[in-house]
């Protein structure tokens, strides 16, 4: 197991290093020197100069940049003085994290329930309904889902608050919009996995031992079927993060995604790049944790990893 974790850690570190290097190179490739503009105040210019060290040789710039990142310093805004990436993340990350966790919990729990119900009622109405929900979930992009939910439940029928993030009621629509894709993926996978497990010999054995059908379903079938579902958690975290980007701007939630989109529209490149590094590193680490967890749960993976 130790060897597996070390290998996974190595790949993740290499990935982050590549990402950071790519960002560094891209900054230099940007057309038309985006870091200078007439409106820039001298203070902002000094900040950028200090952070990127444009006057030094390229190699030195690269190591300055790495050193800054290692210290956790992600850069300065080129539009507003005193605005730093760290400050934005500090203020907005809790909102995004909260929304992300809520949508993951929603997507995974409902996805599992739908998948299990579908598999237990194979070919019946409930199965059909859960398949339709899964298809909708994979075919409707989250920003469209968010806008439609906001329009119908918020504006038209007035059941939920239209925007902002103040209480539990405010979190429901955004969490559904972000988590729906996860729900669809999990329920599809869980259904397929449940149907496969049903044919295994150990289910027959359990049944022939006279165990009640509830116990067979709960203790034998679901427990074994849930394993492959863990593999989608990695991609799911990425999907949830993508979702928060747009959903936060639709529902006016002061999270990271909203600031990111705002910075893109303001052409505040240094904020965009700083936040991109943060996002990238966050996702790489989240994926690594999911992989290691999967290795812990399923011994076959870590043997294959050796």
């Amino acid at each position, binding site marked *: 197991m130790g060897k597996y974790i070390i290998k996974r850690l190595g790949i993740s570190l290499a990935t982050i290093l590549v990402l950071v290097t790519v960002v560094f190179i891209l900054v230099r490739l940007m057309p038309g020197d985006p870091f200078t503009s007439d409106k820039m105040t001298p203070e902002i210019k000094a900040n950028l100069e200090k952070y990127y060290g444009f006057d030094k040789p390229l190699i030195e710039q690269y190591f300055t940049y790495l050193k800054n990142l290692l210290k956790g310093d992600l850069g300065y805004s080129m539009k507003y003085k005193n605005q730093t990436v760290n400050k934005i993340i500090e203020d907005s990350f809790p909102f995004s994290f909260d929304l992300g966790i809520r949508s993951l919990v929603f997507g995974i729990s409902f996805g599992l329930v739908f998948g299990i119900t579908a598999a237990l009622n194979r070919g019946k109405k409930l199965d059909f309904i859960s398949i339709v929900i899964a298809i909708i979930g994979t075919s409707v992009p989250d920003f*469209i889902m968010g806008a439609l939910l906001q329009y119908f439940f918020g504006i038209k029928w007035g059941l939920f608050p239209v925007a902002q993030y103040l209480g539990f009621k405010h979190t429901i629509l955004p969490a559904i919009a972000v988590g729906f894709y996860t729900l669809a993926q999990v329920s599809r996978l869980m259904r397929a996995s449940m149907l496969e497990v049903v044919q295994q010999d150990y289910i027959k054995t359990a049944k022939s031992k006279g165990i009640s059908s509830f116990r067979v379903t709960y203790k034998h079938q679901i427990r074994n079927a849930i394993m492959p579902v863990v593999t989608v958690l990695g991609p799911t975290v990425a999907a949830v993060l993508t979702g928060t980007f747009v959903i936060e701007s639709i529902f006016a939630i002061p999270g990271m995604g909203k600031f990111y989109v705002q910075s893109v529209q303001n052409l505040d490149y240094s904020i965009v790049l700083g936040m991109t590094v943060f996002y990238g590193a966050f996702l*790489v680490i989240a994926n690594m944790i999911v992989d290691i967890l999967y290795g812990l749960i399923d011994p076959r993976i870590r043997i294959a990893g050796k």
Partner: protein
Amino acid sequence: MENNLELKNLNRTEFKVVGKNIEKMESITRPNLTYWADAWRRIKKNNVAFISLMVIVLYILMAIFAPMLSKYEYTAIDSSKMNQFISSKHWFGTDELGRDLWVRVWRGARVSLTIGFVATIMNTVVGGLIGGISGYYGGTLDSFIMRFIDVMYGIPRLIVQILMMVVLRPGIEALIIAMCITGWIGTARFVRGEIYRLKEQDFVAAAKVLGVSDFTIIIRHLIPNIIGLIITNLTMAVPSAIFSEAFLSYIGLGIAPPECSWGVLTKTGVKMLRVYPYQLFIPAFFICSTMLALNLLGDGLRDALDPKLRGTE
């Protein structure tokens, strides 16, 4: 009991020897179906997949011809006709600048579908080549490529796309390039796995023993074996490319006005949602129905292109 009685009543004279007709027994009664003819036959039998295919063909035809045949230009601004609802003059209404939405939707379809298909095909070709070479030749080259892919695979696709779009100037080419930078990796991984498995099989060994060149083995033996999987993969990847375009355009990094795409239309639609909801519903419908049709077609193709399932339906 009754059967026995009837049998007893049967008379030998009522039967005659017809003999064996070897030629007839050995002849092929049904026309020889090629792989593609068989796949086509099975797709036609699968209603869901066939309707999906028709929807996609219809959208492609409309994307090509609808903007040409309409009397409106997709950029023509008319301040006297702002935000008009669906009417006989403007089939999908007009937007905030008085532009005809029917033309803009199909113009957007051109852009969105072009990006979706071109980016996916390029990814498949590049990924297939790299994965194929890596899997077929193996050795140091293979392990080098695989380590590289391991590292690249970890970088979130979206992050790379955003970075590329920040650097490149917004537009169709930029979007395609941004999607191709990392898009090939998934295909390369899976093609490499398939080739690696196939090249150990007896028919490849037989071809090698007979002195068939590497090139011919790849063209005649390996590619036909995985082409079905590749096409299925390709179909399933188009929706995610269309989604990426819509997403990037939505956050302001994709297609820049006055050019329009389904993502740009959705963005305007969301802005106008409170007052003119149809401006979101129309492009949303087209994005969702295209993604749905492609997903369902992919499901159908997976079954139709799998020769092992031949004759099971």
